């Protein structure tokens, strides 16, 4: 078994601030994902990476940057936090994308 660790669990930021979310996995999976979960909108793909140093844009990449400097880690940066924004960001990894393993999420609140 393995685990996906997301830090921090809760993140409070200010409008316009640049915020970074981190994710580590010990499954030794090649592919990693960042999703945003909003109530009533399901999971929307922000970025994914199929190997170290690879980045692929998802449907919601505008306003975000990502970095995959090591196979085990995948970070997401909110380039400019929007006021009253509230969402859960989920990191995930997969060996072959047919079964995806998720972290517990980072809950973002922007004041």
């Amino acid at each position, binding site marked *: 078994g393995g685990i996906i660790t997301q830090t921090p669990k809760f993140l409070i930021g200010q409008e316009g601030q640049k915020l970074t979310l981190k994710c580590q996995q010990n499954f030794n999976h090649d592919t990693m994902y960042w999703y945003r979960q909003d109530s*009533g909108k*399901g*999971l929307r793909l922000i970025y*994914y990476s199929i190997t170290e140093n690879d980045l692929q844009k*998802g449907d919601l990449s505008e306003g975000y940057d990502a970095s995959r400097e090591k196979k085990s880690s995948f970070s997401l940066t909110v380039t400019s936090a929007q006021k009253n924004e509230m969402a859960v960001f989920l990191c*995930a990894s*997969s060996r072959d*994308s*047919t079964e*995806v393993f998720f972290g517990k999420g980072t809950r973002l609140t922007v004041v």
Partner: protein
Amino acid sequence: TQTVSQSDAHVTVFEGDSVELRCNYSYGGSIYLSWYIQHHGRGLQFLLKYYSGNPVVQGVNGFEAEFSKSDSSFHLRKASVHWSDSAVYFCAVMSTNAYKVIFGKGTHLHVLP
């Protein structure tokens, strides 16, 4: 472009009832289909997947799903639900020549005692 549609945002049943959660997809090529469950306040967990072969696939805790190419569907079913099945269920699709996994908006299943 891949799309996944879960037409019911909420489904309410009584314990012991059968339930079907609907999922329809749109994609022209070869795909994998899967279902995930998310209990309140927890991460998503894999339930089952389909790629080829028998269109009815079995998952954990008595869940099964049936693939229909003609209907572009992959509906999830359980014959007799338990209160602990109350959760949000997500359908997901991935094309076989890519790594992008797209999820539906989810169906919240409420099981009443």
